[in-house]
C-alpha cells in the first residue's frame, strides 16, 4: 500500500502553472527529499498534501483512503499528517502549551496530554524549557518545539518545509537527528522540501526533483546523486541549470 498516490494534480496561480504532476506514487516509511529551484512548486506540493492549498485539479490517495477526490477533501485524513514550516510560528504561551495545542484540539484527557507532551518535549531535548515562553526561544529551539508540537500528534507523515533553512550548523544537526530518530523508532514517513543538497544526501532515501512544477526525476537518493538519469537532474546537481 502506497503512502500517497497523486494523479493529474495541477495548481495555477494567476495564469502561471506552478504544479503539474501527472502521476507520482510515494511509498510508506521512507524519507523523501523534494528538491528543485525556487518556484518549482515544492512548497505548494507539501501544502496541497496537507490540504492547506486547494489544487485546481487532481486526486490524492493516502494509504487506505482518498485524501482528495474531485475537490472533496478529507480533513480527518489530513489530521494523520503534520507539517513543520520553514519559519515556525510559536503561539504566545509556554512551550508546554504550544506542544499541547494539537492534543487539546483533539479533546484528549488531561493526564494523557501531560504524559505525551512531556515525552515529546524530552524527545526533542527541550525539557529544561517546558514552562518557558515559546516566543522568547532562539530559532533552533523554536524549530525543536515546532517538531515536538508535530510529533506529539504521532503523525504517519511528517511534512517538512525547509525546516533548517535559517539555522546554524549545530541546530541543523540537532533537527536532522530528531527527524531521523523519530523515523527509525516509529516508522514515520517524511517528506522534506530542502534547498540543501548535502542535507538531502544525509537524510533521504528517495529524491524527487521538481522543475517548473513538473517531476523531472524520482529515484533512489544514491542513484540520484551518483548517477542521475536525467540531463536536467545533472544540470541541477552541477549548478548549471538555467530556468
Amino acid at each position, binding site marked *: 500500500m502506497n503512502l500517497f498516490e497523486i494523479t493529474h494534480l495541477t495548481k495555477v496561480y494567476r495564469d502561471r502553472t506552478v504544479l503539474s504532476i501527472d502521476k507520482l506514487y510515494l511509498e510508506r516509511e521512507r524519507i523523501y527529499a523534494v528538491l528543485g529551484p525556487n518556484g518549482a512548486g515544492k512548497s505548494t506540493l507539501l501544502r496541497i498534501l*496537507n490540504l492547506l492549498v486547494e489544487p485546481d485539479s487532481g486526486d490524492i490517495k493516502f494509504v487506505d483512503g482518498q485524501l482528495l477526490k474531485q475537490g472533496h477533501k478529507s480533513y480527518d485524513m489530513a489530521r494523520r499528517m503534520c507539517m513543520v*514550516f520553514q519559519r515556525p*510560528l510559536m503561539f*504566545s504561551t509556554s512551550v508546554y502549551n504550544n506542544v499541547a495545542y494539537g492534543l487539546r484540539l483533539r479533546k484528549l484527557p488531561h493526564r494523557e496530554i501531560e504524559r505525551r507532551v512531556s515525552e515529546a518535549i524530552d524527545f526533542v531535548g527541550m525539557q529544561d524549557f517546558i514552562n518557558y515562553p515559546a516566543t522568547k526561544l532562539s530559532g533552533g529551539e523554536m524549530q525543536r518545539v515546532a517538531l515536538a508540537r508535530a510529533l506529539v500528534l504521532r503523525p504517519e507523515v511528517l511534512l517538512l518545509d525547509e525546516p533548517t533553512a535559517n539555522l546554524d550548523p549545530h541546530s541543523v544537526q540537532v533537527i536532522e537527528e530528531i527527524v531521523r530518530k523519530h523515523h527509525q523508532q516509529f516508522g514515520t514517513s517524511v517528506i522534506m522540501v530542502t534547498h540543501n543538497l548535502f542535507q538531502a544526501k544525509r537524510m533521504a532515501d528517495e529524491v524527487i526533483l521538481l522543475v517548473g512544477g513538473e517531476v523531472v526525476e524520482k529515484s533512489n537518493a544514491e542513484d540520484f546523486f551518483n548517477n542521475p538519469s536525467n540531463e536536467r537532474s545533472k544540470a541541477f546537481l552541477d549548478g548549471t541549470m538555467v530556468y
Partner: protein
Amino acid sequence: MDAIQFLIQQQSEIIEIVLLSLLVSGSATIISALIGIPLGAWIGLNNFVGKGLLLRIVYTLMALPPVLAGLVVYLILSRSGPLGELEWLFTPSAMVIAQCLLVTPIITGLSAAAIASKEGIIYDHARSLGATRMQAVWTVISESRTGIIAGIMTGFGRAFAEVGAVMLVGGNIRHYTRVLTTAIILETRQGNFEMGVALGVILLILSFIVSSIVLLNAKDFNLGEV
C-alpha cells in the same frame, strides 16, 4: 487646596459622577467590543469584493467627530426622530448609544488590522495541527489579542474622555447624566478652574487603573485552554 476641600465636601456627588462615567463608558466599550471584535475578525480573515472600501469607511468613522455622533443620536432619539417613542434622549442610555457610535469603528478597525497582519501564518499552523476552521479562527483571534486589547483600550479612552456627544444627548443633568467630562466643562464655565483640573486628574487616574486591570488580566488570556 480649595479644590481638595471642595472634593472632600462634594465627595458623594463626585463618586456618583465617577460611577456614572465608568458605567456609561464601560457599557459602551463592552457593547462596541461585542460588535467590533467579530466584525473586525470577519473583515481581517476574509477576502471579498468591497473589502477595501469597507475598511476605508471604518477608518473614516474612527475619526468621527463626537459632536457629529451626538447630533446623529440626538436626531434619532428626539421626539420627531425614528426612535423618539423610546424617550431615551437626555438619559444615560442615549449617552451609551452615542459612545458606541464612536467606539465601535475603533475596535473594528484595530481588530481587523491586528488579525489581518497575522492571519495567514497562524491559520495555516493551526490547520496543520488539526484545528477545524472555527478552532483555527479562534486561534488567530487569540494570537492577535495584543492588537485587539489595544483597540479596546483606545476605544475606552475615547469614550471616557469624550465630551461633545454626551453633552448633546445627555444634557449634563445633575444627579442623572452628569459625567466627569461634562462636569469639567461646567466647572470651567463657572470659573472653578482648580476644580476642573482636579476632576481631570481623577479622570486620568481612573483611566490608568482601568488600563492596568485590563492589561494584567490580558497576560492570563492565552491558548492554555483552546
